[in-house]
């Protein structure tokens, strides 16, 4: 998948230690437009990997290359080219619009561009009517939408999503997945996301990497993984598909 398109992100020999847990990723690559799902049981290291790739955890070893150049993931220059959506979206004080424009203000964007990007992002996630509402008064689903809008407004070069729709009502989740899929498709933004939801992984991702105990035990296309699940977790993840996984919409 990644051979024909330009690589955006490459990870080589990454080792991250966190609270006695060690994550080791010998290699991982993400090309333009790639969407990679990280699956695996709780504690496998999915969030740790995303946080290391976002510069929020300092790796003990390894190299991260961004568009061919080795980067310090904690550097501001790198962190302003990527962003991450967290499991629990925490809202800043102020309105929904204040939250969506927060990252843009940090970058010193002009008022006109800022307004345009905020409006576009609010529209994309169908929260324009909430723009003036206090961000502290949102429901779980609304807060997830604001969190996604806040990330997309930044127009990052890579988007990391850490179970962005966890613990949501199935119907709301379905609608947000639809909007997220539309946003990813429209922006052609390379993304890495973690999930426990099989259908989301199959619907959104081009490739899937399976993590277990801090190691990537298999990585490939959905079809490859469905044919040869590497472990019990993957087997159960794919077992009742009843045929080849659905193509990405």
């Amino acid at each position, binding site marked *: 998948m990644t051979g024909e398109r330009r690589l955006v992100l490459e990870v080589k020999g990454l080792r991250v230690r966190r609270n006695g847990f060690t994550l080791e990723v010998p290699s991982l690559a993400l090309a333009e437009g790639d969407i990679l799902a990280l699956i695996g049981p709780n504690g496998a290291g999915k969030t740790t990997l995303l946080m290391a790739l976002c*510069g929020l955890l300092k790796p003990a070893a390894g190299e991260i290359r961004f568009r061919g150049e080795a980067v310090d993931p904690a550097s501001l220059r790198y*962190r302003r080219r990527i962003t*991450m959506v967290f499991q629990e979206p925490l809202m*800043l004080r102020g309105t929904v619009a204040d939250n969506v424009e927060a990252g843009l203000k940090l970058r010193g964007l002009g008022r006109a561009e800022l307004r345009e990007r905020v409006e576009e992002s609010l529209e994309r996630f169908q929260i324009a009517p909430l723009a003036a509402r206090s961000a502290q008064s949102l429901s779980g689903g609304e807060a997830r939408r604001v969190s996604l809008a806040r990330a997309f407004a930044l127009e990052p070069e890579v988007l990391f999503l850490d179970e962005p729709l966890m613990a949501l009502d199935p119907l709301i989740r379905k609608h947000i997945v639809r909007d997220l899929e539309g946003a990813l498709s429209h922006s052609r933004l390379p993304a890495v996301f973690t999930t426990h939801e099989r259908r989301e992984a199959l619907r959104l991702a081009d490739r899937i990497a399976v993590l277990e105990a801090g190691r990537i035990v298999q990585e490939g296309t959905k079809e490859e993984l469905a044919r040869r699940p590497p472990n019990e977790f993957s087997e159960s993840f794919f077992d009742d598909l009843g045929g080849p996984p659905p193509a990405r919409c």
Partner: protein
Amino acid sequence: MELIANGVNEALRLLVSLDPEVLGITALSLEVSGVATLLSLLVGIPVGTALALCDFPGKRLLIGLVNTGMGLPPVVVGLFVTVLLWRSGPLGAFGLLYTPAAIIIAQSVLATPIVMGITVAAVQQLPKSLHQQILALGASRGQAGWMLMKEARLPILAAVMAGFGAVISEVGAAIMVGGNIKGHTRVLTTATVLETSKGNFDVAIALGLILLAFTFVINLALTQLQQRGKA
């Protein structure tokens, strides 16, 4: 009761008559305590935020020291500042002892650990993930600190009130480093002590009531600001 009533009457009379001495003492009190609080905020809030956010060996010990500083006895601070500013002391060359500047220094030393300690607690009570989410939005370390301070502004405003309350009401350090010199370093608290020792209870009560009134008005304004930020 009569004593208190006389005190209230005397306070009103002193205020209504715009007694120049009382006005001077009140103005100096507000100036000295205002500047001391401001200095303590300039040091205490950024350092407290950094202390809350940074991880380093000895952090707990340092926070413990700051928390201990929140209970510094004013007379001990007064003693150390006096020694520092004494003519033959390390800072004696500046000639600051028995000046309003000396009171400001002593009161800043008293208020800074209070502001810093409450700021550390205020920032630490924010969800850890909020700091990470702000960094993920592309904030520099400084911008993240500023945004977290804004998120914690309710308890930080409580730190401002506590810091101001500590300095406007303290008397030990102000007497020791200021000398309670009439027209020069006499503030509301030191004047109250003096008038009480002379048996002029009505004037002492009047000065005390003026002190309480100003403390109330300033804290009310800060509370309004704090509660407005709640929305």
